[in-house]
């Protein structure tokens, strides 16, 4: 009861705070934290659902109105949540280490980028871009393309185990990126490093502004992905994946179809990336191969492991933490230091305005990010929200 009141209060309070201080990063973090609290608190299920729905469906867009930056963060968080959930199936559930996951994202993104922009005219003569309405059809195309590429990659590499698989997926990811970077000759398919622009945006009902529209679209996809994930996890396919992860030989002996299960894992995981790729390309209006580097794959992998491998809420929280840390907390921190510097604040007798440019805070965000990754792993190796069974296995000291 106390928790219910607390949870409701917190959401309300922090939302009010964001509306009052739209520029304060900390207050927005408080809002995000209150959502986590709602998820973890012991409150009736209907209240939890209602509060989360209220926060995500109503409060977030309203707050986004006060500061569009937050809505952008929320949208990007959503995109990465879907990616993390997809990779979670491959790495977390089926235990197949995939280091080239972003390739599927790229495939989805390029599918809409090519046909949703005048670029396709180069190959097919005329008639492009397709009408913006096709975007919704391409969500499906992206999904199928992603799944298809996943299965294609899966086919030849099924014999490989562990890190051999990892290195082949890494190679595959690089191959896709380099192809995207080079296929402007002999036939111009991807326009190479110059990228493709302008990519059409989908028509939106009721004249909702694009920022909000993309937020809702991403949210919708994330909700669907989460639901699919939960169904999969409890289905016999999901159990087969976990069995393969724990012991491939034993699983095979128990009659788990290895080939089919693994292909399914690759296909499912990749399809989420494919669909998000389509959304990403429409949202960005412009894409080029720089968005699909190996580091992006590593970033998504870090989200999955940080959140807790094999755990759906873990993947959601992991993606949120990494994205928010990277786009908001570290940026906010260095901006804050910059303000102190500009204001000439004196700390311990040292005027910050004299700080040499070598120590410019904005330059060292990635360094701090790296340190945080190490610390998190040392102090919480099972991830932020681990699967309960795994948490028991590891035994939190």
């Amino acid at each position, binding site marked *: 009861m106390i928790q219910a009141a607390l949870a409701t209060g917190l959401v309300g309070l922090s939302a009010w705070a964001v509306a009052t201080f739209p520029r304060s990063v900390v207050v927005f973090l408080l809002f995000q934290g209150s959502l986590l609290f709602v998820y973890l608190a012991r409150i009736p299920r209907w209240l939890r659902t209602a509060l989360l729905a209220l926060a995500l469906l109503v409060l977030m867009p309203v707050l986004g109105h006060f500061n569009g930056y937050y809505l952008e963060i929320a949208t990007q968080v959503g995109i990465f949540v879907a990616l993390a959930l997809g990779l979670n199936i491959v*790495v977390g559930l089926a235990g197949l*280490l995939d280091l080239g996951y972003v390739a599927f994202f790229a495939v989805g993104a390029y599918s809409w980028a090519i046909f949703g922009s005048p670029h396709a005219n180069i190959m097919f003569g005329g008639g492009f871009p397709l009408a913006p309405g096709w975007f919704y059809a391409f969500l499906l195309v992206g999904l199928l393309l992603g799944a298809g590429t996943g299965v294609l990659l899966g086919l*030849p*590499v099924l*014999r*490989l*185990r*562990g*890190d*051999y698989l*990892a*290195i*082949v997926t*890494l*190679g*595959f990811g*690089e*191959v896709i990126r*380099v*192809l995207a*970077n*080079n296929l402007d*000759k*002999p036939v111009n398919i991807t326009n190479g490093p110059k990228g493709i622009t302008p990519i059409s945006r989908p028509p939106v009902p009721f004249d909702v502004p694009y920022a909000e529209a993309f937020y809702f679209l991403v949210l919708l996809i994330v909700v669907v992905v989460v639901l699919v994930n939960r169904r999969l996890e409890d289905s016999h396919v999901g159990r087969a994946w976990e069995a393969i992860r724990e*012991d491939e030989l034993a699983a095979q002996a128990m009659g788990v179809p290895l080939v089919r299960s693994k292909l399914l894992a690759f296909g499912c995981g990749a399809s989420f990336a494919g669909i998000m790729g389509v959304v990403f390309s429409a949202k960005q209006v412009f894409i080029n191969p720089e968005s699909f580097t*190996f580091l992006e794959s*590593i970033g998504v*992998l*870090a989200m999955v*492991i*940080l959140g807790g*491998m094999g755990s759906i809420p873990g993947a959601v929280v992991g993606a949120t933490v990494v994205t928010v840390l990277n786009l908001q907390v570290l940026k906010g921190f260095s901006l804050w230091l910059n303000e102190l510097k500009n204001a000439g604040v004196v700390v311990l007798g040292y005027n910050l305005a004299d700080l*040499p440019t*070598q*120590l410019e805070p904005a*330059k*060292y965000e*990635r*360094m701090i*990010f*790296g*340190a*945080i*990754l*190490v610390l998190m*792993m*040392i102090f919480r*190796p*099972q991830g932020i929200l681990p699967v309960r069974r795994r948490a028991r296995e*590891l035994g939190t000291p």
Partner: protein
Amino acid sequence: MDLPLLVGIFPQVFLDGLILGFMYALIALGYTMVYGVLEFINFAHSEIFIVGAFVGVEILLGMRAAGWLEALPWPLVLLLILVAGMAGAGLLAVSVERIAYRPLRGAPRLIPLISAIGVSFFLQDLIRLVESIWRNAFNLVYPTMDALNHRFELTETIDVSVKSLVVIAAALAMLWALHALVNRTKIGTAIRAVAEDQAAASLMGIDVNRIISLTFLIGGAMGGAAGVLFGVQYGLINPYSGFIPGLKAFTAAVLGGIGNIPGAMIGGVVLGLLEAFAASYLSLLTGGAFGAEYKDIFAFSVLILILIFRPKGLLGEIVRERA
């Protein structure tokens, strides 16, 4: 197609590929040794490698400022920076293991991987921070030593420089030393025992932690040596230049059969040759339709093919799958 041209450059391309391959082989050793013992990918090895290169260039620049660079004979200078680079990188590898990996021993095997990624990010920008305060520079240039740049013209189109020969000689010497160490000494036996079964090794009275530290020291030192040779051969380094060679070397280690020391060497050389031939010949053979930019695709495609037919790498891995 210009057949005499294609044939004419063949030996030169082969030689270039060989040098690159030995470089990869040296870096790959660091991955393979750590993997053999701990079964985890030391993602931060590429930064350990580049730290070796930075130690080397700092000493060279210091010596040049003091005027010793011209005064001392070049083999001595080279030996000195090699040893210093190995020491610096080796010690760094040991401390990274102590701080970021040891507390995670026993956790699922992907956990230390993320820690290693964190270390990699951290080290990249740490190197940059230190260098920007110390030299206010981003790119550092290896001072040229004229004796090393001397070239022997074998034919009109083929030549080889002293430094290339040095790279090959140094790599071979170090690979031989490592092989001897692992297979013929007591320490080597201990390392192999720990790789086989940590618990049993510790029952036999082997200090597992010390052996693991030692593994990191050796692997790091090999990486450091590769870093110095990389700097001498190619001339320019920055805090991020370790990343790509590191990735390639890791690929080479897997290609040869991870955990397998001769495998790392073979894998490195094969990858180096593949890359060199792809970069030189693709454009010539396809009339410019596909060029050097496809060399990585070519290398990775061959890698995938090899792994499909030999799923345990060229020489097979030595580590058993742990139940």
